[in-house]
């Protein structure tokens, strides 16, 4: 880690007092909110709110409300309308949940999710979520770094990519009766992206278990990429030597790529990515940041890559 000398620190890097005070206020609100939201059940969230956000958390940006986070979802397995998942996802049964792990690893097999999670510390992370449709949220997830689980499976040296599949079961996911997308939904990451400490498997939000419409029982959250990369309700993890084909890149290869890094300079062919609407805001006035504001942490993963070609 680089330790900065005092003259390295620009005055703009020092948190102004007003911001600092706002942060205190926020934490105060967080405690109040936490008390209401958890009502004594899941104490960790309240504790978490009391200790404030950590360095890897989004600072100074208010959380998107629980209601909006859980009623405005892109989860075509339950319908293509934004409110469809919150209405229809009750058919999903998040337990018991079996995860198939396969491919270039020493320990392939079928695992019960609860067995996989045993011994893993669940952390809270406040991340921005930027959808490719130019809206964004700030969400307090609960989860753990992918790297913790991946290292348990002992990938071989051939494992360069990891592929994820969503459950494919029309009984539980009625939206899969229509052929809107080729099922199951598939996503993937390069191994170094997957091992990055910001990439997490989320098991909850707002201090409770993931609601079905948000991808129960566990999903990916890769905050520097467009939301569609953060695949939900995962049942299969496959380690591969070659780059997987992700669903949206199959459906519309000129519009969605494998990397899908948030980038204001690379427009979607049908709309600009320069600005975003921070929900529930009315104006699309927020300037989108490179890698969704996580450039300092993840920029090195893409050094020397043409981000326009590898969109």
């Amino acid at each position, binding site marked *: 880690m680089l330790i900065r000398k005092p003259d390295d620190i620009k005055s703009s890097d020092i948190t102004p007092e007003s911001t600092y005070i706002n942060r205190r206020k926020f934490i105060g609100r967080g405690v109040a909110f936490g008390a209401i939201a958890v009502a004594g059940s899941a104490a960790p969230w309240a504790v978490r709110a009391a200790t404030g956000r950590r360095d890897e958390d989004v600072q100074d940006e208010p959380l998107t409300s629980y209601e909006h986070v859980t009623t*405005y979802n892109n989860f075509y397995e339950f319908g*293509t309308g934004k409110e469809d998942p919150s209405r229809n996802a009750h058919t999903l049964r998040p337990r018991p949940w079996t995860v198939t792990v396969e491919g270039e690893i020493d320990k392939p097999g079928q695992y019960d999710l609860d067995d996989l999670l045993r011994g893993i510390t669940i952390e809270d992370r406040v991340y921005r979520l930027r959808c490719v449709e130019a809206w964004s949220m700030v969400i307090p997830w609960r989860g753990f770094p992918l790297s913790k689980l991946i290292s348990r499976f002992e990938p071989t040296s051939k494992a360069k990519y990891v592929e994820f599949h969503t459950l494919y079961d029309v009984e539980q996911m009625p939206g899969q009766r229509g052929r*809107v*997308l080729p099922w199951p939904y598939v996503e993937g990451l390069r191994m170094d992206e997957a091992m990055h400490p910001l990439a997490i498997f989320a098991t909850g939000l707002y201090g409770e278990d993931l609601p079905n419409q948000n991808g129960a029982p566990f999903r990916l959250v890769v905050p520097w990429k467009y939301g569609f990369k953060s695949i939900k309700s995962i049942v299969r993890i496959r380690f591969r030597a070659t780059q997987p084909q992700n669903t949206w890149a199959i*459906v519309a290869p000129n519009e969605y790529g494998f990397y899908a890094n948030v980038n204001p300079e690379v427009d979607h062919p049908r709309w600009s990515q320069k600005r975003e609407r921070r929900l529930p805001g009315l*104006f699309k006035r927020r300037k989108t940041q490179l890698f969704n504001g996580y450039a300092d942490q993840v920029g090195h993963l893409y050094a020397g890559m043409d981000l326009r070609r590898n969109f």
Partner: protein
Amino acid sequence: MSLSKWVRRIGKPVIFAACLVPVSLIVADIFQGRLGANPIEEITHRTGDWTLIFLLVTLGVSPLRRLTGWGVVVQFRRMLGLFAFSYGLVHFSIYVVFDHFFDLAAILEDIVKRPYVTVGFTSLMLLVPLAITSTKGWVKRLGGRRWNRLHQLVYVSAAGGVLHYLWLVKADTRRPIVFGLVLVALLATRLWRPGKRGRRAEAVVRDAKASLG
């Protein structure tokens, strides 16, 4: 009450009020906070849907008259067409104000670079001359035949509207396809017309006169 009186006193006010129902529901939802996390997107989609629905209903007036023989329905066509245009204007204004906050350069870039905006904008602009010439005076000035010719543009506009919707959606094309099928069906009734050519020309003139209300 004579038929024309009935149309003026009851028919038109009732249809007018009915046409305001969609926008009233939107306003009610705004005040009750029922538009969800992304109210602007919701309003944009709803006004867009209603623009297309009103266009198709307007286009359905002539076929309905031919099918049923109810000449009176033509008298509501202008109002329906103007409502289509109004919903379209609201739809576009929301985009100008909330998506771009009057940033003309960004709007122009959208119109030039993005086909679904290009075709949507063009479709709305095509309705402008139709709205302007929807008055009695303009029918007289242009003459029934020319006026009718001009107003055939509504088909181009509706087709453009459907295309706009089709090019906008990410994967779920079901709704734009339904709109498209309705449009094709309405067009088909135009092509299938029993009777002689002369009668058709007569009908065209009658149409124009009738739509004066």
